[in-house]
Protein backbone atom coordinates (compact mmCIF):
# COMPACT_ATOMS: atom_id res chain seq x y z
CA UNK A 1 0.00 0.00 0.00
CA UNK A 2 1.41 3.42 -0.94
CA UNK A 3 1.96 6.24 1.53
CA UNK A 4 -0.97 8.13 0.00
CA UNK A 5 -3.25 5.14 0.41
CA UNK A 6 -2.22 4.64 4.02
CA UNK A 7 -2.89 8.31 4.76
CA UNK A 8 -6.26 8.14 3.02
CA UNK A 9 -7.05 5.19 5.29
CA UNK A 10 -6.18 7.27 8.38
CA UNK A 11 -8.59 9.95 7.21
CA UNK A 12 -11.27 7.38 6.51
CA UNK A 13 -10.94 5.14 9.56
CA UNK A 14 -9.71 7.46 12.30
CA UNK A 15 -11.00 10.87 11.31
CA UNK A 16 -14.14 9.53 9.62
CA UNK A 17 -13.44 11.73 6.61
CA UNK A 18 -13.62 10.47 3.06
CA UNK A 19 -11.14 12.49 1.00
CA UNK A 20 -12.14 12.12 -2.67
CA UNK A 21 -8.65 12.15 -4.14
CA UNK A 22 -4.99 12.71 -3.17
CA UNK A 23 -5.18 16.20 -4.65
CA UNK A 24 -8.37 17.28 -2.88
CA UNK A 25 -7.76 20.50 -0.93
CA UNK A 26 -8.44 19.33 2.63
CA UNK A 27 -8.17 22.77 4.16
CA UNK A 28 -10.39 24.47 1.60
CA UNK A 29 -12.93 21.69 2.13
CA UNK A 30 -12.94 22.45 5.85
CA UNK A 31 -11.89 18.95 6.84
CA UNK A 32 -9.03 19.82 9.18
CA UNK A 33 -10.08 21.50 12.40
CA UNK A 34 -7.77 21.62 15.42
CA UNK A 35 -8.73 18.23 16.81
CA UNK A 36 -8.50 16.57 13.39
CA UNK A 37 -5.08 18.13 12.83
CA UNK A 38 -3.63 16.93 16.12
CA UNK A 39 -5.20 13.49 15.69
CA UNK A 40 -3.75 13.26 12.18
CA UNK A 41 -0.23 14.03 13.42
CA UNK A 42 -0.59 11.45 16.17
CA UNK A 43 -1.76 8.82 13.69
CA UNK A 44 1.02 9.63 11.23
CA UNK A 45 3.52 9.06 14.00
CA UNK A 46 1.91 5.74 14.89
CA UNK A 47 1.60 4.58 11.29
CA UNK A 48 4.96 5.70 9.90
CA UNK A 49 7.12 6.13 13.01
CA UNK A 50 7.91 9.76 12.22
CA UNK A 51 7.35 12.61 14.63
CA UNK A 52 5.80 15.63 12.97
CA UNK A 53 5.44 18.40 15.51
CA UNK A 54 3.32 21.49 15.21
CA UNK A 55 6.29 23.73 16.02
CA UNK A 56 7.97 22.99 12.72
CA UNK A 57 4.94 22.51 10.56
CA UNK A 58 3.43 24.74 7.92
CA UNK A 59 -0.24 23.95 7.49
CA UNK A 60 0.32 24.20 3.71
CA UNK A 61 2.16 20.89 4.00
CA UNK A 62 -1.14 19.31 4.99
CA UNK A 63 -3.28 20.81 2.24
CA UNK A 64 -3.66 17.56 0.28
CA UNK A 65 -2.98 13.90 0.90
CA UNK A 66 -0.35 14.15 -1.82
CA UNK A 67 1.52 16.81 0.16
CA UNK A 68 1.12 14.96 3.45
CA UNK A 69 2.58 11.85 1.78
CA UNK A 70 5.52 13.90 0.51
CA UNK A 71 6.09 15.26 4.00
CA UNK A 72 5.93 11.79 5.54
CA UNK A 73 8.23 10.30 2.91
CA UNK A 74 10.77 13.07 3.43
CA UNK A 75 10.71 12.52 7.19
CA UNK A 76 11.04 8.76 6.75
CA UNK A 77 13.97 9.40 4.42
CA UNK A 78 15.61 11.71 6.97
CA UNK A 79 15.18 9.06 9.62
CA UNK A 80 16.75 6.37 7.44
CA UNK A 81 19.69 8.60 6.52
CA UNK A 82 20.16 9.39 10.19
CA UNK A 83 20.52 5.71 10.97
CA UNK A 84 23.44 5.25 8.59
CA UNK A 85 26.88 5.02 10.24
Amino acid sequence: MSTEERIARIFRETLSVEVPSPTTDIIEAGLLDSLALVTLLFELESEFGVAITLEHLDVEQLRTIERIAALVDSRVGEGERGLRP
Partner: protein
Amino acid sequence: MSPIRALERADLPAVAALHELCVRSGRPIPPRGLDAYFARTLLDCPWADPEIPSLVYTDEDGSVVGFQGSSVRRARFEGQPIRIACAGPLVAHPRVRSRGVGAFLINAYMRGPQDLTIIDGGTEQMREIWLLLGGEMAHLECVGWARILRPWRFAYAHLRGRPDAPAPVRLALGALDGATTRWVGRMAPPPERDLSAEPLTPTTLLEHARAFGEHAALHIDYDEPYLRWLFDEVAAVHPRGTPVARLVRAPRDGRALGWYVYYLLPGGTSYVLALVAADRDVDPVLDHLLHHAWSGGATAVRGRIEPRLLEPLARRRCLMHYAGMALVHSHRREILDAIAAGRSQLTRLDGEWWMGPHVLAFPEGS
Protein backbone atom coordinates in the same frame (compact mmCIF):
# COMPACT_ATOMS: atom_id res chain seq x y z
CA MET B 1 7.87 33.26 9.24
CA SER B 2 5.63 31.84 11.95
CA PRO B 3 2.08 33.16 11.90
CA ILE B 4 2.14 33.11 15.73
CA ARG B 5 3.52 35.99 17.74
CA ALA B 6 3.05 37.69 21.11
CA LEU B 7 -0.04 39.83 21.63
CA GLU B 8 0.66 43.54 21.33
CA ARG B 9 -1.45 46.37 22.65
CA ALA B 10 -2.32 47.40 19.10
CA ASP B 11 -3.91 43.96 18.58
CA LEU B 12 -6.51 44.46 21.30
CA PRO B 13 -9.32 45.86 19.13
CA ALA B 14 -8.91 42.95 16.72
CA VAL B 15 -8.77 40.45 19.58
CA ALA B 16 -11.90 41.96 21.11
CA ALA B 17 -13.69 41.76 17.75
CA LEU B 18 -12.64 38.14 17.33
CA HIS B 19 -13.81 37.26 20.82
CA GLU B 20 -17.13 39.01 20.29
CA LEU B 21 -17.66 37.12 17.04
CA CYS B 22 -16.61 33.68 18.24
CA VAL B 23 -17.56 33.61 21.93
CA ARG B 24 -20.02 36.35 22.83
CA SER B 25 -22.76 37.70 20.59
CA GLY B 26 -21.63 36.34 17.22
CA ARG B 27 -21.48 39.88 15.89
CA PRO B 28 -18.23 41.29 14.49
CA ILE B 29 -18.29 44.56 16.41
CA PRO B 30 -17.20 44.30 20.05
CA PRO B 31 -18.80 46.39 22.80
CA ARG B 32 -16.95 49.35 24.17
CA GLY B 33 -14.77 48.17 27.02
CA LEU B 34 -13.98 44.63 25.91
CA ASP B 35 -10.57 45.57 24.56
CA ALA B 36 -9.87 47.49 27.77
CA TYR B 37 -10.82 44.39 29.76
CA PHE B 38 -8.29 42.33 27.83
CA ALA B 39 -5.70 45.06 28.38
CA ARG B 40 -6.25 45.03 32.13
CA THR B 41 -6.31 41.28 32.53
CA LEU B 42 -3.71 40.15 29.99
CA LEU B 43 -1.24 43.00 29.57
CA ASP B 44 -1.49 45.11 32.70
CA CYS B 45 -1.74 42.38 35.32
CA PRO B 46 1.21 42.80 37.71
CA TRP B 47 2.27 39.25 36.91
CA ALA B 48 1.99 39.59 33.13
CA ASP B 49 5.13 37.93 31.84
CA PRO B 50 6.68 38.85 28.49
CA GLU B 51 8.22 35.38 28.31
CA ILE B 52 4.77 33.76 28.57
CA PRO B 53 2.63 36.18 26.58
CA SER B 54 -0.82 35.88 25.12
CA LEU B 55 -0.49 34.80 21.51
CA VAL B 56 -2.08 35.86 18.27
CA TYR B 57 -2.24 33.98 14.97
CA THR B 58 -2.05 36.23 11.95
CA ASP B 59 -3.22 35.65 8.42
CA GLU B 60 -1.15 36.30 5.29
CA ASP B 61 -2.16 39.96 5.34
CA GLY B 62 -1.23 40.35 9.01
CA SER B 63 -4.76 40.40 10.37
CA VAL B 64 -5.43 38.62 13.65
CA VAL B 65 -7.44 35.44 13.07
CA GLY B 66 -6.63 33.52 16.24
CA PHE B 67 -5.95 34.32 19.86
CA GLN B 68 -4.72 32.47 22.93
CA GLY B 69 -5.02 34.37 26.21
CA SER B 70 -2.33 33.96 28.85
CA SER B 71 -2.54 34.62 32.56
CA VAL B 72 0.64 33.92 34.47
CA ARG B 73 0.70 33.01 38.16
CA ARG B 74 3.78 32.98 40.34
CA ALA B 75 3.91 29.98 42.61
CA ARG B 76 6.20 27.87 44.74
CA PHE B 77 6.81 24.20 44.32
CA GLU B 78 8.65 22.52 47.19
CA GLY B 79 9.71 26.00 48.24
CA GLN B 80 11.18 26.99 44.88
CA PRO B 81 9.62 29.66 42.65
CA ILE B 82 7.88 28.44 39.53
CA ARG B 83 5.64 30.00 36.91
CA ILE B 84 2.18 28.73 36.04
CA ALA B 85 0.60 29.59 32.70
CA CYS B 86 -3.18 29.67 32.76
CA ALA B 87 -4.50 29.23 29.24
CA GLY B 88 -7.26 31.80 28.91
CA PRO B 89 -9.64 32.25 26.03
CA LEU B 90 -8.71 30.41 22.83
CA VAL B 91 -10.51 31.63 19.73
CA ALA B 92 -10.09 31.22 15.99
CA HIS B 93 -11.99 32.99 13.24
CA PRO B 94 -14.48 30.62 11.58
CA ARG B 95 -12.81 31.01 8.20
CA VAL B 96 -9.51 29.61 9.49
CA ARG B 97 -10.80 26.85 11.73
CA SER B 98 -10.08 24.28 9.04
CA ARG B 99 -6.43 25.27 9.26
CA GLY B 100 -6.05 23.98 12.80
CA VAL B 101 -5.31 27.46 14.14
CA GLY B 102 -6.46 26.56 17.64
CA ALA B 103 -4.11 23.58 17.78
CA PHE B 104 -1.15 25.64 16.59
CA LEU B 105 -1.89 28.28 19.23
CA ILE B 106 -2.37 25.95 22.19
CA ASN B 107 0.68 23.93 21.19
CA ALA B 108 2.84 27.06 21.01
CA TYR B 109 1.51 28.17 24.36
CA MET B 110 2.17 24.82 26.03
CA ARG B 111 5.77 24.85 24.79
CA GLY B 112 6.58 28.11 26.58
CA PRO B 113 9.12 28.46 29.39
CA GLN B 114 6.58 28.02 32.17
CA ASP B 115 6.85 25.13 34.63
CA LEU B 116 3.18 24.26 34.47
CA THR B 117 0.30 25.02 32.12
CA ILE B 118 -3.30 24.68 33.26
CA ILE B 119 -6.83 25.02 31.94
CA ASP B 120 -9.70 25.10 34.38
CA GLY B 121 -12.91 24.31 32.56
CA GLY B 122 -11.84 23.08 29.15
CA THR B 123 -14.23 21.53 26.65
CA GLU B 124 -14.31 17.91 25.51
CA GLN B 125 -12.57 18.85 22.27
CA MET B 126 -9.91 20.75 24.17
CA ARG B 127 -9.32 17.69 26.33
CA GLU B 128 -8.71 15.56 23.25
CA ILE B 129 -6.29 18.08 21.78
CA TRP B 130 -4.57 18.58 25.12
CA LEU B 131 -4.02 14.86 25.67
CA LEU B 132 -2.67 14.36 22.14
CA LEU B 133 -0.22 17.19 22.74
CA GLY B 134 1.13 15.56 25.89
CA GLY B 135 -1.09 17.11 28.53
CA GLU B 136 -3.03 15.32 31.23
CA MET B 137 -6.31 15.60 33.06
CA ALA B 138 -6.32 16.66 36.69
CA HIS B 139 -9.08 14.24 37.58
CA LEU B 140 -9.97 15.43 41.06
CA GLU B 141 -10.17 19.04 39.91
CA CYS B 142 -12.84 18.02 37.37
CA VAL B 143 -15.27 17.31 40.20
CA GLY B 144 -17.51 20.01 41.56
CA TRP B 145 -19.63 20.17 44.69
CA ALA B 146 -22.97 21.75 45.36
CA ARG B 147 -24.91 22.47 48.52
CA ILE B 148 -28.54 23.19 47.73
CA LEU B 149 -29.87 25.82 50.13
CA ARG B 150 -33.31 26.58 48.71
CA PRO B 151 -34.32 23.48 46.74
CA TRP B 152 -37.50 24.71 45.10
CA ARG B 153 -36.09 27.98 43.86
CA PHE B 154 -32.94 26.18 42.74
CA ALA B 155 -34.96 23.58 40.82
CA TYR B 156 -37.14 26.27 39.25
CA ALA B 157 -34.11 28.28 38.09
CA HIS B 158 -32.38 25.13 36.88
CA LEU B 159 -35.34 24.03 34.81
CA ARG B 160 -35.99 27.46 33.36
CA GLY B 161 -32.33 28.30 32.87
CA ARG B 162 -32.71 31.62 34.68
CA PRO B 163 -33.15 32.57 38.36
CA ASP B 164 -35.85 35.27 38.12
CA ALA B 165 -39.50 34.36 38.56
CA PRO B 166 -42.81 36.27 38.63
CA ALA B 167 -43.70 37.54 42.10
CA PRO B 168 -46.49 34.98 42.82
CA VAL B 169 -44.23 32.10 41.77
CA ARG B 170 -41.42 33.51 43.88
CA LEU B 171 -43.71 33.66 46.91
CA ALA B 172 -44.93 30.12 46.41
CA LEU B 173 -41.41 28.78 45.94
CA GLY B 174 -40.30 30.66 49.05
CA ALA B 175 -43.03 29.06 51.09
CA LEU B 176 -42.14 25.61 49.78
CA ASP B 177 -38.47 26.21 50.54
CA GLY B 178 -39.34 27.37 54.07
CA ALA B 179 -41.34 24.22 54.75
CA THR B 180 -38.84 21.87 53.14
CA THR B 181 -35.80 23.25 54.94
CA ARG B 182 -37.70 23.23 58.23
CA TRP B 183 -39.10 19.70 58.04
CA VAL B 184 -36.63 17.76 55.93
CA GLY B 185 -33.56 17.27 58.10
CA ARG B 186 -31.04 16.93 55.33
CA MET B 187 -32.23 20.17 53.75
CA ALA B 188 -31.92 22.21 56.97
CA PRO B 189 -30.17 25.56 56.62
CA PRO B 190 -26.45 25.60 57.41
CA PRO B 191 -25.92 26.18 61.12
CA GLU B 192 -24.66 29.48 62.41
CA ARG B 193 -21.52 28.84 64.40
CA ASP B 194 -19.90 30.87 67.12
CA LEU B 195 -17.21 32.42 64.93
CA SER B 196 -16.06 35.86 64.06
CA ALA B 197 -15.18 37.04 60.59
CA GLU B 198 -13.73 40.12 59.07
CA PRO B 199 -13.35 41.30 55.48
CA LEU B 200 -10.44 39.65 53.75
CA THR B 201 -8.25 42.26 52.10
CA PRO B 202 -5.12 41.87 50.00
CA THR B 203 -3.12 42.79 53.08
CA THR B 204 -4.76 40.29 55.42
CA LEU B 205 -4.69 37.54 52.78
CA LEU B 206 -0.99 38.13 52.26
CA GLU B 207 -0.47 38.10 56.01
CA HIS B 208 -2.03 34.65 56.31
CA ALA B 209 -1.33 33.10 52.92
CA ARG B 210 1.96 31.54 53.86
CA ALA B 211 0.62 29.91 57.02
CA PHE B 212 -2.29 28.34 55.16
CA GLY B 213 -0.26 27.35 52.12
CA GLU B 214 2.71 25.77 53.85
CA HIS B 215 1.20 22.30 53.94
CA ALA B 216 0.93 22.21 50.15
CA ALA B 217 3.86 21.28 47.91
CA LEU B 218 2.49 23.66 45.28
CA HIS B 219 0.85 26.97 46.09
CA ILE B 220 0.57 30.49 44.73
CA ASP B 221 3.22 32.93 45.92
CA TYR B 222 1.02 35.97 46.40
CA ASP B 223 2.29 39.52 46.66
CA GLU B 224 0.36 42.68 47.41
CA PRO B 225 0.31 44.32 43.93
CA TYR B 226 -1.02 41.11 42.43
CA LEU B 227 -3.63 40.66 45.15
CA ARG B 228 -4.86 44.23 44.71
CA TRP B 229 -5.23 43.61 40.99
CA LEU B 230 -6.91 40.26 41.66
CA PHE B 231 -9.47 41.67 44.11
CA ASP B 232 -10.29 44.50 41.71
CA GLU B 233 -10.75 42.18 38.75
CA VAL B 234 -12.79 39.61 40.68
CA ALA B 235 -15.10 42.45 41.72
CA ALA B 236 -15.39 43.62 38.11
CA VAL B 237 -17.16 40.44 36.96
CA HIS B 238 -20.59 41.63 38.15
CA PRO B 239 -22.73 38.98 36.43
CA ARG B 240 -21.33 36.30 38.71
CA GLY B 241 -22.54 38.15 41.80
CA THR B 242 -21.06 40.22 44.61
CA PRO B 243 -17.65 38.98 45.67
CA VAL B 244 -17.47 38.13 49.36
CA ALA B 245 -14.06 37.64 50.94
CA ARG B 246 -13.85 36.77 54.63
CA LEU B 247 -11.17 35.84 57.10
CA VAL B 248 -12.71 33.56 59.74
CA ARG B 249 -11.43 33.60 63.31
CA ALA B 250 -11.99 31.45 66.37
CA PRO B 251 -14.23 33.24 68.87
CA ARG B 252 -12.13 32.83 71.99
CA ASP B 253 -8.54 33.50 71.05
CA GLY B 254 -9.11 35.21 67.69
CA ARG B 255 -6.91 32.68 65.93
CA ALA B 256 -7.28 32.84 62.15
CA LEU B 257 -8.98 29.63 61.00
CA GLY B 258 -9.03 30.23 57.28
CA TRP B 259 -10.49 32.35 54.54
CA TYR B 260 -12.84 32.16 51.63
CA VAL B 261 -13.80 34.09 48.54
CA TYR B 262 -17.06 33.51 46.70
CA TYR B 263 -19.58 35.26 44.51
CA LEU B 264 -22.84 35.80 46.39
CA LEU B 265 -25.79 35.79 44.01
CA PRO B 266 -29.08 36.29 45.88
CA GLY B 267 -31.78 34.15 44.30
CA GLY B 268 -29.20 32.23 42.30
CA THR B 269 -26.24 29.91 42.56
CA SER B 270 -23.21 31.30 44.35
CA TYR B 271 -19.80 30.11 43.19
CA VAL B 272 -16.87 29.56 45.50
CA LEU B 273 -13.49 30.68 44.23
CA ALA B 274 -11.41 29.67 47.23
CA LEU B 275 -11.81 28.14 50.65
CA VAL B 276 -8.50 27.80 52.43
CA ALA B 277 -7.92 26.50 55.92
CA ALA B 278 -5.76 24.04 57.77
CA ASP B 279 -7.23 20.53 57.72
CA ARG B 280 -8.57 20.76 61.27
CA ASP B 281 -10.29 24.09 60.54
CA VAL B 282 -12.03 23.37 57.23
CA ASP B 283 -15.31 22.58 59.01
CA PRO B 284 -15.88 25.94 60.71
CA VAL B 285 -14.73 27.93 57.68
CA LEU B 286 -17.01 25.94 55.39
CA ASP B 287 -19.93 26.37 57.76
CA HIS B 288 -19.33 30.10 57.91
CA LEU B 289 -19.36 30.33 54.12
CA LEU B 290 -22.52 28.24 53.74
CA HIS B 291 -24.35 30.19 56.41
CA HIS B 292 -23.27 33.47 54.85
CA ALA B 293 -24.59 32.35 51.47
CA TRP B 294 -27.84 31.16 53.05
CA SER B 295 -28.28 34.48 54.85
CA GLY B 296 -27.58 36.32 51.63
CA GLY B 297 -30.39 34.56 49.77
CA ALA B 298 -28.41 32.16 47.59
CA THR B 299 -30.31 29.13 46.33
CA ALA B 300 -27.18 26.99 46.15
CA VAL B 301 -23.45 27.14 46.64
CA ARG B 302 -21.11 25.45 44.22
CA GLY B 303 -17.39 24.99 44.16
CA ARG B 304 -14.63 22.75 42.97
CA ILE B 305 -13.40 19.77 44.91
CA GLU B 306 -10.09 19.99 46.69
CA PRO B 307 -8.79 17.01 48.65
CA ARG B 308 -9.10 18.66 52.06
CA LEU B 309 -12.71 19.58 51.37
CA LEU B 310 -13.90 16.13 50.41
CA GLU B 311 -14.78 14.74 53.79
CA PRO B 312 -16.29 17.95 55.24
CA LEU B 313 -18.43 18.35 52.11
CA ALA B 314 -19.58 14.75 52.21
CA ARG B 315 -20.66 15.13 55.83
CA ARG B 316 -22.75 18.11 54.83
CA ARG B 317 -24.46 16.00 52.16
CA CYS B 318 -23.14 18.11 49.36
CA LEU B 319 -23.68 16.77 45.87
CA MET B 320 -20.69 15.89 43.74
CA HIS B 321 -20.86 16.45 40.00
CA TYR B 322 -18.76 16.87 36.89
CA ALA B 323 -17.57 20.48 36.75
CA GLY B 324 -15.61 20.71 33.48
CA MET B 325 -12.20 19.63 32.34
CA ALA B 326 -9.21 20.59 34.44
CA LEU B 327 -6.14 20.06 32.29
CA VAL B 328 -2.46 20.25 33.16
CA HIS B 329 0.81 20.04 31.24
CA SER B 330 4.36 20.16 32.48
CA HIS B 331 7.75 18.84 31.52
CA ARG B 332 8.35 18.38 35.25
CA ARG B 333 6.79 15.08 36.25
CA GLU B 334 7.12 15.85 39.95
CA ILE B 335 4.77 18.83 39.63
CA LEU B 336 2.11 16.75 37.89
CA ASP B 337 2.51 14.03 40.51
CA ALA B 338 2.01 16.55 43.31
CA ILE B 339 -1.23 17.76 41.70
CA ALA B 340 -2.47 14.21 41.14
CA ALA B 341 -1.67 13.35 44.75
CA GLY B 342 -3.63 16.31 46.07
CA ARG B 343 -0.51 18.06 47.38
CA SER B 344 -1.27 21.31 45.59
CA GLN B 345 -3.30 24.28 46.71
CA LEU B 346 -4.55 25.81 43.50
CA THR B 347 -8.04 27.19 43.90
CA ARG B 348 -10.35 28.58 41.27
CA LEU B 349 -9.20 32.01 42.39
CA ASP B 350 -5.73 31.09 41.16
CA GLY B 351 -6.72 30.09 37.63
CA GLU B 352 -8.67 31.92 34.94
CA TRP B 353 -12.06 30.33 35.59
CA TRP B 354 -13.50 33.44 37.24
CA MET B 355 -12.38 35.83 34.53
CA GLY B 356 -15.26 37.19 32.60
CA PRO B 357 -14.74 38.26 29.00
CA HIS B 358 -17.58 35.96 27.98
CA VAL B 359 -20.06 37.00 30.68
CA LEU B 360 -19.38 40.69 31.25
CA ALA B 361 -22.02 43.17 30.14
CA PHE B 362 -20.71 46.22 28.32
CA PRO B 363 -22.46 49.24 26.86
CA GLU B 364 -23.73 48.60 23.34
CA GLY B 365 -21.73 49.84 20.34
CA SER B 366 -18.05 50.57 20.02
